[in-house]
């Protein structure tokens, strides 16, 4: 082994990246690796970076280990495991100086694949598998398991945990368990015999090497889409209409799986839910709107292109005031864009979905736990506010496993169906009108089909109607109605989840007198918290606020006004959230400094920190804004 000068050190704090070929079963093996670290009680966050293809293209898997519990991407790679010739050159380039490169040396490395500041670890993976396993299928498949075994030795993993995991995964398939365990041992044995293990970067269990707040809680490892599906189950969703699209597909898959477990009528064995794979997204949204109109809790899950296709229906639902829940798992670009890459670039498209004057209610989850809680809440909000609610998840959150505090449920929770008059209510109501704002909150009383023999029936249409739901093309009626919708949106502010702030970070002698703040949402949050720590260490105290919903709570503009310079961190090109804030809170844009990443791979703490650092090093925030504040 070629030993390089100074190697990267680190207990429970490093980044491992796997480079492999799509369709070879690597993701499962890599997940095994991550899960084992999780079981060791060490904070870990795996990310699958896969192509829009089923077999043969390069795929990566990045595992962040962070004793402090930072689950966002840090940036950089400390150990690269590369078994894909297609990408090996770029993979090697990606390794941090002093880092480690593990590869299959069945064939010798091409001479140009050299770096003096990196330590190389060759393992004859192919050769070993050819020797040990019969079928090509197993040779292919177990090669990945062998390298996991090798890493176990290099990084000081608890081997028994790996074995247990394999046993769980293939419960009942003894033949398979033994061959997998054998593969693990092969890798483990080879490196222990050929290299001195473990490496200076390594894993260790115990209080002293893991942030206490993690050790205490009984964390779980789950992806956002699964949590969202559970939220739909617990939120009382009965109708799911959808059209397959990456990265939202697994939301409905998981809903289906859990519903089969939790939603079968005990007496009849029949289903207390309906799932329809629609012919496209227009139809999916139409079904959700129709079901909502008829009093069922309905939702759909989609992604960018689907959101565009749903916009006419979203506009109708806004004006006709129909509840609907839309899970938008954001991805990059158009259909032939980067469907398997993550972004937060549907903010404006969702907030103002549809032609005409519309504003939609948005929720921004940042963790699987929040995916669960917010999905439950989305169904209440949609019925309370009688309007669509769009949950803005993204690929990174939805499809990757995140370490999260366990999901919690209060058995006293009861669905809030909003203002719906039943037969009794209708009999008591004096001159009821569907669009009469009796409570002054902009929310009126609806009725459901089939409720009452001769009261409460009305005709649902867009906006050509009066307060009694009678057809009207009068401008006065139109204005009255859409002004009420604004009032309702104002009411929504107090219904949606409030933003989260953290106690300001302490900094001994701050380098600046300015009060600095950072606004962010969703998956930009965890790398932001880490970046703020980094900058605090450098003498820059930055207060943070994590936005969790639109319309924005008043505390958002209070936060902005309490600070001299506010960074808005998001993962899109056009600073969409920054625009939305400026629009809706009437904030001078110049005060909001964009911190952006839109490469398709999740934003890293180092990237955020350097963008903020650069801005702070330039005189005055103003420079980034086209117009000085005084304007």
């Amino acid at each position, binding site marked *: 082994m070629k030993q390089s000068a100074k190697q990267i050190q680190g207990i429970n704090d490093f980044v491992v990246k796997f480079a492999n070929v799509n369709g070879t079963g690597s993701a499962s093996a890599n997940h095994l690796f991550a899960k084992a670290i999780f079981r060791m009680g060490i904070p870990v966050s795996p990310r699958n970076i896969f192509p829009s293809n089923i077999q043969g293209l390069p795929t990566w898997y990045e595992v962040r280990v962070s004793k402090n519990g930072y689950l966002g991407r840090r940036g950089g790679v400390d150990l690269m495991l590369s078994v894909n010739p297609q990408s090996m050159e770029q993979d090697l380039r990606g390794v941090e100086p002093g880092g480690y490169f593990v590869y299959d040396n069945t064939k010798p490395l091409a001479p140009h694949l050299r770096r003096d500041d990196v330590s190389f670890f060759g393992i004859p993976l192919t050769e070993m598998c050819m020797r040990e396993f019969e079928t090509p299928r197993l040779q292919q498949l177990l090669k990945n398991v062998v390298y996991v075994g090798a890493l176990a030795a290099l990084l000081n993993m608890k081997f028994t945990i790996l074995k247990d995991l394999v046993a769980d995964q293939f419960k009942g398939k003894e033949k398979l368990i033994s061959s997998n365990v054998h593969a693990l041992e092969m890798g483990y044995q080879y490196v222990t015999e050929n290299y001195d293990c473990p490496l200076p970067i390594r894993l260790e269990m115990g209080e002293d090497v893991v942030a206490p707040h993690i050790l205490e809680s009984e964390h779980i490892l789950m992806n956002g889409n699964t949590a969202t599906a559970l939220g739909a189950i617990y939120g009382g969703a009965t109708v799911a209409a959808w059209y397959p699209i990456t990265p939202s597909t697994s939301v409905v898959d998981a809903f289906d799986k859990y519903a089969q477990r939790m939603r079968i009528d005990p007496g009849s064995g029949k289903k207390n839910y309906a799932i329809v794979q629609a*012919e496209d997204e227009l139809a999916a949204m139409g079904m*959700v709107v129709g*079901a909502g109109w008829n009093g069922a809790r309905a939702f759909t899950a989609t992604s960018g292109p689907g959101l565009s296709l749903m916009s006419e229906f979203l506009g*109708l639902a806004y004006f006709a005031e129909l509840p609907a829940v839309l899970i938008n798992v954001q991805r990059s670009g158009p259909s032939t864009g980067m469907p398997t890459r993550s972004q937060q670039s549907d903010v404006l498209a969702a907030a103002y979905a549809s032609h005409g004057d519309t504003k939609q209610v948005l929720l921004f989850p940042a963790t699987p736990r929040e995916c669960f809680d917010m999905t439950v809440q989305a169904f209440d909000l949609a019925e309370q506010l009688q309007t669509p609610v769009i949950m803005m998840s993204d690929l990174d959150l939805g499809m990757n496993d995140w370490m999260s505090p366990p*999901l919690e449920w209060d058995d006293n*929770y009861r*669905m809030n169906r909003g203002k719906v008059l039943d037969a009794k209510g209708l009999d008591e109501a004096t001159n009821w009108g569907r669009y009469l704002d009796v409570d002054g909150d902009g929310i009126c009383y609806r009725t459901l089909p089939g409720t009452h023999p001769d009261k409460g*029936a*009305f005709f649902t249409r867009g906006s050509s109607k009066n307060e009694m739901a009678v*057809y009207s093309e009068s401008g006065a009626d139109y204005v009255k109605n859409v002004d009420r919708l604004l009032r309702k949106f104002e009411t929504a502010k107090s219904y949606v989840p409030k933003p989260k702030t953290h106690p300001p970070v302490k900094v001994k002698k701050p380098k600046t007198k300015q009060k600095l703040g950072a606004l962010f949402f969703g998956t930009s949050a965890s790398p932001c918290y880490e970046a703020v720590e980094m900058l605090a260490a450098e003498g820059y105290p930055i207060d943070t606020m994590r936005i969790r919903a639109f319309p924005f709570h008043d505390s958002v503009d209070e936060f902005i006004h309490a600070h001299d310079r506010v960074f808005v961190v998001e993962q899109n090109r056009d600073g969409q959230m920054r625009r939305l804030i400026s629009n809706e809170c009437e904030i001078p844009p110049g005060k909001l400094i964009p911190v952006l990443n839109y490469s398709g791979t999740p934003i890293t703490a180092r990237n955020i920190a350097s963008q903020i650092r650069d801005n702070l090093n330039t005189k005055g925030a103003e420079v980034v804004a086209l117009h000085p504040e005084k304007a």
Partner: protein
Amino acid sequence: MSYVKPKFRHPNLPVNTLGHTIADYDGAISTLCAGCGHDSISAAIKNACFLSSIPPHRIAKVSGIGCSSKMPTYFLGKSHGFNSVHGRMPSVATGASLANRDLTYIGVSGDGDTASIGMGQFVHLVRRNVNMTYIVANNGCYGLTKGQDSATADLGSVAKGGAVNEFDGIDLASLALLQGASFVARSFSGDKDQLEPLIRAAMAHKGFAFIDVVSPCVTFNNHAGSTKSYAETRDHLDMMPLDFVPMREEIRTHYPPGTTQGITLHDGSVIHLHKASNDYQADDRIAALNAVQQAKEDERILTGLLYLDPNTQDLTQTLNLATRPLNELGDEELCPGSRVLNSVNEGLR
């Protein structure tokens, strides 16, 4: 605006088994053109519901956009209705029917709403066999947008502007048959005797029931064939300013099964309706498809009950839905509670 029968009616009006009079099935005053075929269909739906003694409030009306899609406002005022978006009523109806399987669903659409923008959703609605009655008021044109040809316009038919339709018309009944609809019928808006029973049968049918109703547009009247006869009346129409809509009487007809009836439309053009004879077998899908296609080639429109499969499985059965409507389920049925959630957490460690 149509001549509308006064809401007030003689006290001892006939009542149905529910004790309702026909007045209980009235809707708002129609704002369609006088003599529009659609108003005849509204009347037929009204009567059908009355005669079948369906409680008005247990019916839900859904439609897309168009003159035809406005119809639900003009019947069954005691039923909830939803005038949704253009061409997407099938999806709205599907969602509604899943939310509450116990209501009777009447979908009203136009040929533009169904055969053009709605084509995709229509085909898939048929495929899912949603339990509803789907009526297309088929006038071969886009009435509400002033008379452009629709996709069901016959080859060679002439639009008010004078443009000749160069495309073969889409036959919705054939499409429904091909896609395996369990109830397929066709009629003419003016043929009360045929239409009413068909609507009653459709509503009684458990599964997707489709009725294609030829319903002349008296104003843009470019429904059918005969270019020549159109020309006849041409000059006379040209005299009229484009925004002048003459008051017309609706077309009515009567003719026995097994016979063909030529009907002269407001533009002077003639369509030929052929009523399936009483011994027509409505239980063979492929045969029905043949008969309809054959008639089309002979420039005849086959009317009547074309196909019926009384024992199909509708969407609620396919999905094995609980018998209780989903929109009635409460926290008990829907929320598994904390114990179950904890077990889920367990599985994720």
